[in-house]
Structures are given as C-alpha cells and as structure tokens.
C-alpha cells in the first residue's frame, strides 16, 4: 500500500471514477468516515480575459516519489485506513476536475485532517505546473496561493 504509485491521469478526473473509488470501500467495514477533496478548474478572469482551461505538466517521477513520502507521513501521523490521490495532466477545461484526494479512516477527525494536510502539502511540494489558457489562446502560468 505504501509503495510508489502513479498519481497522474491523462485528462480530467471524472465523476464516475470518483463513484467507483467510493464504491470500492464498501467492503472495508472498519471505515467510518471518508474525506474527499476535489480541485476544479475555475474560469477566472485575468486582465479582462477568461481562463478556459489549464494545461498541466509535471516532473512525474519526482512528483510520485514525493507523494509517496507525503503518503507515508500521513499514515504515520493519522490513523488512516486508506488514501488515494489523482492529479490530471494535459489540458483540463474550466469546470472539469483536476485533483482528487480521498482519505478514509475509522473516525472522522483522522480522515478530515489527513485530507486537508495532503492537499496543502501536495500543492506546495509536488513538481507540477499549470498553464492557464485564455479564451484568446494566450496563456499565463498559474501561481499557487
């Protein structure tokens, strides 16, 4: 469970995939709580131009190794049953999902805290870059808050 996984998926995360992931936990009857975070591409307006999508690239090998470290730290710190992370690569249109973080635990506090901490850490620590595509086909590089 703690070995190196590939978190990247080509294109958006789709809702059916999320449903399937949730469904797969119904036989883990020690779980009492799931916490899910979803990142959705926002149609921000920048300098009067609308963002129509974000194109994601990553240093995939390094990101997957770093994610393994984050995952191990989360299992160390919180009493978790499982944890799954998926990040999109390629162009994701506004309104589509680009990030799916899913933690499960016997009790809610562990699931909720681990999910939030994982989101914060992966935004800060994973070598992933988003290029915002504008409606006029110009672009600018995303900056995380």
């Amino acid at each position, binding site marked *: 469970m703690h070995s190196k996984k590939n978190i990247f998926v080509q294109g958006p995360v789709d809702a059916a995939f999320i449903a399937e992931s949730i469904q797969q936990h119904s036989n883990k009857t020690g779980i009492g709580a799931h916490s899910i975070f979803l990142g959705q591409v926002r149609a921000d307006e920048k300098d009067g131009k609308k963002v129509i999508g974000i194109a994601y690239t*990553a*240093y995939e*090998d390094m990101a997957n190794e770093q994610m393994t470290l984050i995952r191990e730290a989360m299992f160390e710190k919180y009493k978790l049953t499982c944890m799954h992370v998926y990040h999109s690569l390629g162009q994701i249109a506004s309104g589509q999902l680009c*990030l799916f973080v899913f933690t499960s635990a016997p009790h809610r506090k562990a699931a909720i805290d681990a999910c939030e901490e994982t989101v914060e850490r992966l935004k800060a620590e994973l070598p992933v*870059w988003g290029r915002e595509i504008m409606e006029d086909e110009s672009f600018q590089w995303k*900056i*995380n808050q």
Partner: protein
Amino acid sequence: MFVEIMVFGQLTEITGSATVALEGAADTDAVLRLLQTRYPRLTGSRYVVAVNKKIITENTKVGNTDAVALLPPFSGG
C-alpha cells in the same frame, strides 16, 4: 563532463526546450553559471534545482548519470 538538464514549466519558454545539454560542468554551481550565460533571462527567474529527484540547497557534484532539473514555483492542484 556531459550533463543533460531537464527544464520545466515557464522556464521552458526561456530555454525553448525541455532538455538542455551542457558540456564541462562538474557541479550544480557550474551548471547554473553555464545556463545563465546561455540564457540570460534565467538570472531573473525563480526556480530550485533538483538532483536525482531531490531538491538541493547547496552546490552538488553532478555527472552524466545524474538527473538534474530546474523547477520553477509549483502550481499543481
């Protein structure tokens, strides 16, 4: 000594490609000096250097089997 440098994100707009081959750099300080000479706009850019998928904070020896990468500020998620 031949080193291939991986370049990511907005830095590829400066280098014009995702990899840059360098000759004659034995450590990361030398890599950065050569890169900044070849691509002056790098000097004003924010980035960190990773060697073998770990971010380094001090000068590090590199050879042709090492994975050297220039990483601009992350913006995933």
